[in-house]
């Protein structure tokens, strides 16, 4: 088993050394993002996507603090995003021209304002969490997000349904990524010190935590406040980057997508949230590129793509069932495994044919690429959940040791 652990004070050199190196790496990364604008000047679309993915990293990691680390069930993260965006956007429209502040300092100030506004909102939403648990909390946060959105539609001061145009447009890619890095750093620092443990403890068992003297109320509200303030700051950056916000940009779907990033990445894993945010933001955008391909190819492949994903889902479900039924005899299991695989293949052809038929009957000349891309996204979501319900990274975090262990394990298997 594991040997007893020696707890040592980290050496001063190592502690400060690693922090300086991280800081330098972070600055270099932000500078890299900022300067990427030059080489990508021809492909602004790509650059834009790269920059905006930083916002989703912030959103996912901050939601992870609430959902993954503290174990609360919040599915209304877009509300905080929206509050930050609208507060900052409105203030800029109203006040920027009268202030003698440079654009970037102003933007940083607006980030703080957006964060503060979202934090207050987070406090208000966090308070019900004292009384509610699980699904009830989830539905309340969801409802809260909708209420904020509908209110925004009906306030003409902030543009109503038409949206709010923000003048001036202040685009600062490095700041977007700096916020993402700050968010990751804050969550990681929290988990690195003993201060993070009560958050995890609340996730694991609230009753036991409070019996250990952990004020669950305080922890939950703290998580809500920190998480929402990051979302608010991200909203402020979004508002100034796009120079335009509408209530529709903060619909329920946004909350769902961010939640999906957290769960797929592995609840509680900051690494997982980061990677999943990048993947799930870039995947639909990459699928958007399918449009570039010839239309005929898509007409043919749509039933196949969907058929294949459905067949995979069927395969997993059947395989699980078989496994539950016949725990024990390996040979039997292997046989059934192949049987199931064959059945799934049959299903694939069946689905394909059915879809092609339906598509033909419905008189579709082509496939709506947007629906196709979202359908594939949804199918991938289901497949990942069926294969790895704990998320791709589970509770793991990226670390060199973890990477090494993966590598070493593989070697052992090979030998």
């Amino acid at each position: 088993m594991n040997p007893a652990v020696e707890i040592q004070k980290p050496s001063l050199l190592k502690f400060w050394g690693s922090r300086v190196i991280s800081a330098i790496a972070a600055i270099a990364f932000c500078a890299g993002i900022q300067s990427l604008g030059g080489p990508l000047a021809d492909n602004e679309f790509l650059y834009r996507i790269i920059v905006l993915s930083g916002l989703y990293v912030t959103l996912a990691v901050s939601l992870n603090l609430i959902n993954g680390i503290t174990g609360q069930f919040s599915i209304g993260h877009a509300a905080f995003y929206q509050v930050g965006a609208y507060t900052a956007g409105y203030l800029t429209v109203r006040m920027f021209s009268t202030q003698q502040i440079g654009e970037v300092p102003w933007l940083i100030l607006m980030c703080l304002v957006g964060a503060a506004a979202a934090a207050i909102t987070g406090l208000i939403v966090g308070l019900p969490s004292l009384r509610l648990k699980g699904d009830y909390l989830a539905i309340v946060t969801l409802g809260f997000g909708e209420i904020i959105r509908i209110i925004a539609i009906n306030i003409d001061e902030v543009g109503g349904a038409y949206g709010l145009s923000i003048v001036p447009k202040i685009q600062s890619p490095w700041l977007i990524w700096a916020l993402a890095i700050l968010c990751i750093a804050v969550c990681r620092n929290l988990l690195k010190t003993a201060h993070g443990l009560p958050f995890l403890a609340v996730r694991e068992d609230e009753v036991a935590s409070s019996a250990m003297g952990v004020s669950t109320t305080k922890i939950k509200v703290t998580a809500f406040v920190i998480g929402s303030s990051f979302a608010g700051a991200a909203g402020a950056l979004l508002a100034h980057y796009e120079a335009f916000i509408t209530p529709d940009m903060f619909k329920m779907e946004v909350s769902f997508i961010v939640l999906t990033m957290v769960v797929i990445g592995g609840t509680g894993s900051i690494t997982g949230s980061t990677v999943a945010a990048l993947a799930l933001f870039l995947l639909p955008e990459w699928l958007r590129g399918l449009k570039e391909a010839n239309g005929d190819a898509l007409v043919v492949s749509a039933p196949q793509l969907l058929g294949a994903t459905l067949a995979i889902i069927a395969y997993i479900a059947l395989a699980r069932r078989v496994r539950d039924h016949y725990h024990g005899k390996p040979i039997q299991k292997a046989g059934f495994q192949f049987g199931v695989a064959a059945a799934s293949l049959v299903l694939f052809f069946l689905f394909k044919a059915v879809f092609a038929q339906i598509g033909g009957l419905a008189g579709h000349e082509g496939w709506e690429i947007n629906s196709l891309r979202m359908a594939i996204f949804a199918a991938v979501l289901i497949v990942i959940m069926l294969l790895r319900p704990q998320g791709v990274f589970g509770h793991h975090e990226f670390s060199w040791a973890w990477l090494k262990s993966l590598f070493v394990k593989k070697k052992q298997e090979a030998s």
Partner: protein
Amino acid sequence: MANTAEQETQATLDESATPILELADATIKFGGLTAVDSVSFTLNKGDLFGLIGPNGAGKTTVFNIITGVYKPTSGDILFNGRNIAGLKPEKVAQLGICRTFQNIRLFGSLSVLENVVVGGFLRKKTGLFSALALLPPAVNETTELRKKAMDLLEVMDLADVAQSRAADLPYGKQRRLEIARAMATGPDLILLDEPAAGMNPQEKEALATTVRRIRDDFDKTVLLIEHDMRFVMNLCERIVVLDHGVEISAGTPDIVRNDPKVIEAYLGEESE
């Protein structure tokens, strides 16, 4: 199996005893059901006190009202002279009462070490900001807490599994870990809810030694619920017996053992 020597010690203790926990007519009703009906008893500093009774007697409920999970409908609970009835669990823990749970409630996916650190976190000094910015005070405090936790694990003989997931431990070790975690909060009074449940005789023996050590070496007061009569009778110096929420007997193990009410309540179970 009464140990007269111990009884004498007990008697002398009683003379100079300072009460640490007093239940005065503690009552709790759920709807029409009176789960605990004016239970009163007093624990003195350094006591090893047992709370027994057949299934559904309301033992765990007594624990729950002491630790603030439930607010008693009426009656007082004095801890070091202060009424703690209705305080929140975390407040009670901060005042110095800590407990374990009948159905083990560990932080399953945290490591054994981390579980104990959560207990010790109660006495933290640095603020949250210090942690978020990873400033040296928070880092140093973390190291200290981990060291203390490691020491406790050594005592509870769990040091070798410090890095394992708590949920992966075998049952007996989980029970010990719960006690270690409770100890980490630095309580004056520790409540153990069926610590020996599911253990084999050897493990029970070891557990009894540990509980005595907690009392003697760490200078804690212990209140425990137990099902296993022999275990309680051997370990505890004073015992209260509950049945259907009512206190039916109290005193030294000998007195309790011979009380006809207790025998009646335990009919069929005493042979255990």
